[in-house]
C-alpha cells in the first residue's frame, strides 16, 4: 500500500466513524427507549417561616408527594405523603394533630406510625434540616 492509498483509507474510515458518532445520538433521541426515573434525595420543601405551627404543606419530592408538618410545638417533621395502604396522598389533620389518609381513614401519628385503619406500614420519614432560609428535606440513609 502506498502513502496516498493509506491516507485515503484513513480519511474515509474517519469520515464513516464521524457519521456514526453523529447519527447514533440523533437516532436515539428520535426513537427513545424507556427512561430511568431520576431519584431525588434532597429538596427544599419550604421557606423558613412559611408554615405556621400546627400546619402542613404537601411538597413535590421528585414526582411523589411529601408532607412537611410544623407541629403545634413548632417542630418540623417530614414524611412521604404516600399512604402505605393504596398510595393515596395523606393530609395533616390539625384538630387531632395526626396524619390522615382521606381515602380509607387510615391514621398515622407524628412519628409516621400507624394509629388506626388499614395502612400496613408506617409512612417513610425524612430528615429535615434548616439551610439558611430554606427547609431542606432529605431521604434517610
Amino acid at each position, binding site marked *: 500500500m502506498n502513502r496516498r492509498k493509506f491516507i485515503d483509507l484513513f480519511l474515509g474510515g474517519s469520515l464513516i466513524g464521524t457519521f456514526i458518532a453523529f447519527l447514533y445520538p440523533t437516532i436515539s433521541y428520535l426513537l427513545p427507549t424507556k427512561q430511568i426515573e431520576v431519584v431525588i434525595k434532597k429538596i427544599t420543601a419550604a421557606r423558613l417561616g412559611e408554615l405556621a405551627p400546627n400546619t402542613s404543606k404537601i411538597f413535590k419530592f421528585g414526582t411523589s*408527594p411529601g408532607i412537611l408538618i410544623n407541629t403545634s410545638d413548632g417542630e418540623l417533621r417530614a414524611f412521604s405523603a404516600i399512604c402505605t395502604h393504596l398510595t393515596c396522598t395523606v393530609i395533616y389533620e390539625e384538630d387531632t394533630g395526626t396524619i390522615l389518609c382521606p381515602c380509607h381513614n387510615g391514621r398515622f401519628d407524628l412519628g409516621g406510625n400507624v394509629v388506626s385503619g388499614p395502612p400496613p406500614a408506617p409512612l417513610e420519614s425524612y430528615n429535615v434540616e434548616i439551610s439558611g432560609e430554606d427547609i431542606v428535606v432529605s431521604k434517610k440513609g
Partner: protein
Amino acid sequence: MKARKMRKIINLLSIFFLAISIFSLSLYAQKNYCIECHQELEDELLAPVETFEKDIHQQFGLSCADCHGGNPAEEDIDLAKDKSFKGSPKRSQIPEFCASCHSDSSYMRRFNPSIRVDQLDIYWTSEHGQLLKKGDTKVALCTDCHAAHGIQTSTHPKSWTFPWNIPQTCSRCHSDKDYMKDYKIPTKQWDDYKESVHAHALFEKKDLSAPVCNDCHGNHGATPPEITSIAFVCRQCHPSAGELFSQSPHKEVYDEMGISECEACHGNHKILPPSDEMLGTGEKAVCIQCHEPDSEPYQIASQMKEKLDAFIKKIRHAENLLEQADRQGVEVSEPKFRLTEANTILIMVRNLTHSLSLVEIEEKIEEGKKVVAEVTSAGEAALREAKFRKKGLIIATCFIFLLSIALFLKIKQITKKTPYKSA
C-alpha cells in the same frame, strides 16, 4: 514459728474444704430430678424435657414443680411425688390448671405488669369453652394453641400464636375433616383464607397487621361473629367503608333481611382483592347477585361502573401522554406529581361506591376530571414540545448532512484542479 505456720496451713485447708462442701451442696440442691429422670424416659415422658428449655416459663425462672408440684430436689421418685404433687392434669382440667397462675393478677404482675389475667373468663364464653363445660374434651384448650411445654410468647416468630402461625394453629383441628365431623362445620376455611387478600398481605408481604383467625373470631373467646357483628369486625380496620355503608340504602335492607354487610359482597375467609369488576352489571359484578336487570338499582350500578370506567380511561390516557413525553426527554415531573392527586381521587371514588350515592360519586369524579384535564393538557403540550424538538433536530441533521456532501464535493473539485505532482 513452725507451729504458727502449721496452724496457718490447717486454717487455709479448712476454708478450702468448707468451700468445696458448700459448692457441692448447692449443686445437689439445684439438681432438678424431674428433668434428670425424665431425660432417661421415652416419647411423651421425654418430650417435656426436650421442649421446656425454650419455654417462656423456664426463661422467667419457673420449673416443673411450679406447675406440677412435687419436690424436684428429691432423687427418690416416691419422695419427689410428695403431697404437693399435682402431676399432669386431665384435658378437662387444663384451663383451670393454667389459670391458677394466669388469672392471679398479683402473681402475674411480678413477671409482666401489663399481662391480661382474664383469659379463663373469656375462654368460658368461647365456643370451645362452652363445649368443654358440656364435657367435650376434643375442643381447643390452652395447650392446643400454646403447646404444653416449649411455650413461647405470641411475639416470638416461632410461637404457635405468632400472627403468621395462627392460621396453621387453628387449622390443625379446623381443617381436619375427621376430627371436625361431629361439629358439622366447614373445614375449608384455611384453604379459602390462603387465597384471600389478607393471606397475601401476611404471607407474601410479611405484613403482620393483616388479620388472621383470631382478629375476627377472638382468641381465648373464639366464636363465629354473629351476622350483625361482622360489619363491626371488618370496621376495626376498614372504618371508612363501614361508615359509607351505614349511610347507604343497603344498610336498612340488609338489617331487615338479616344479610351480613361486608360479607355479602366480599365473602368471609376467601376475601379476594377488590376489583372494579365487582361493580356494575358485568359477569363478575356482585350487584347482579340481588338486583334484576330492569330494576332501578341495576341501572344505577351500571351508570356507576360506566362513570368509573370513563374516569379511569381518562387517567390512563393522561398517564400515557406523560410517559411518552418523559421518554422523549421532556421534563414532566410537575404534571406527574399532579397525577398523584387524580389517583387519590380515583381511590376515593372506589371507596365511595360503598355509599351507593351516584350523586356523590359523580361529584368526586368531576373533581378528578378537572385534575386529569390539566394533566392531559400538560402532557399534550409536552408532546408538542417533543415533536418540535424532533423536527428541529431532523432539519438540523439534514443541513449538516448536506453541508458534509457539499464539503466533500468541494474538496474533490479542488483536488482535481490541483493534481499531485509526481516526484
